[in-house]
């Protein structure tokens, strides 16, 4: 399993775009928002938690279709299916690799971009915490969606349609934690629920993903 993780990370680094593209997209979305809503610091500061969360969600979405599509096209996925690795393990590793290449960089970059949106100083800690807790769930749910659409020629749009509704709880708890942090309220509840969702998705979705992959390889 470690071999697969190492290979996926190496591929992400070499092929370029793995790390950079999602991050650049994140930056652009965050920069575009003030052009859309106006430059008032107070307004930006109020909507910053939501913008940062929605933008990181979209950035994570951007690279989902690459999770399985490339391996499907070059035949690796079939070879992995006949290898001793359980498909559940493959799903878990794919989600982890996706998180390391998108979720983690997004989490690290978010505070810098929070500065651009004049996020309340109290909220930075919770922004970091909520993204750290929540982005793994985004990757795991996205991996499930990618597995559902892996055999389809134009699966990208469908993938977004399937995955975005599943992102609702994560987004709500994540953005709520930051907002409460910014308002000086106690965000522990939201953070715990966010952690719960991540733990739940990592416990259950690998099985659904593996089942879906087997069906798609038939």
């Amino acid at each position, binding site marked *: 399993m*470690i*071999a*697969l993780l190492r*290979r996926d990370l*190496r*591929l992400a680094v*070499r*092929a370029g775009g793995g790390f950079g593209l999602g991050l650049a997209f994140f930056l652009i979305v965050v920069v575009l928002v003030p052009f859309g809503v106006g430059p008032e610091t107070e307004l930006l500061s109020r909507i910053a938690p939501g913008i940062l969360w929605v933008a990181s969600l979209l950035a994570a979405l951007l690279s989902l279709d690459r999770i399985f599509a490339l*391996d499907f*096209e*070059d*035949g*690796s996925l*079939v*070879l*992995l*299916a*006949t*290898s*001793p*690795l359980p498909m559940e393990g493959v799903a878990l590793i794919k989600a982890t690799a996706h998180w390391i290449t998108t979720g983690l960089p997004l989490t690290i970059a978010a505070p810098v971009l929070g500065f651009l949106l004049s996020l309340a100083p109290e909220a930075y800690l919770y922004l970091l915490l909520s993204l750290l807790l929540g982005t793994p769930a985004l990757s795991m749910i996205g991996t499930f969606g990618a597995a559902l659409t892996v055999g389809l020629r134009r699966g990208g749009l469908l993938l977004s349609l399937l995955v975005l509704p599943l992102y609702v709880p994560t987004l709500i708890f994540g953005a709520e934690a930051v907002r409460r942090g910014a308002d000086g309220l106690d965000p522990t509840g939201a953070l715990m629920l966010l952690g719960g969702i991540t733990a739940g998705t990592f416990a259950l979705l690998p099985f659904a993903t593996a089942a879906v992959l087997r069906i798609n*390889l*038939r």
Partner: protein
Amino acid sequence: MLRVTGLTCARGGLPVLSNVSFTVPAGEVLILRGANGIGKTTLLRTLAGLQPSLDGAVEYPEDEGAYASHADGIKAALTVTENLAFWADVHGAANPRSDSNAGLETVLSTFDLSDLRDRTGGTLSAGQKRRLGLARLGVIGRKVLFLDEPTVSLDGFSVKRFADWLRDQHLAHGGCAVIATHIDLGLAAPELDLTPFKAALDAGGGSDEAFL
């Protein structure tokens, strides 16, 4: 080593081959013959466990099957060595980068890849990719091989190398193989013509049978 009894397999929900039975003992190869579309690929995929059979049984030692088709699973951004090492790792075979470097070397030279070892997969020609894909079979340590047209885009010299490897390395060490191919590999191997097993038009067991 491989025993197939009364196997019926389907493509797109319709039975294509029915009641296929054969055995392949250790150290032997079975060549599948038959016209295009007869169901060779379907049969091999079913044998490898990639798709469920409609009926019948396939028996071989667990975790010993390997499948190879025209898609070699080669990553364009990884070097030849890295590609091979990855598959060896996944299969838990001896890590070719540490202790038994010799194993990887042998495989590389067997398939004439030694000079290409640091080239990335993307720069290989079709035939070189094919050789790398076949070399994968040499590092994963599986005994029962299901090969779908393994010699496509190989030149005559490489075909011979592959046949030599199969005979001298794989079969000699107790492996076996089922190969679908249209050319003569130069192996003394029994052939199985699939034409008589073609499923009848009214054969039962299709996934939409209930609707007829």
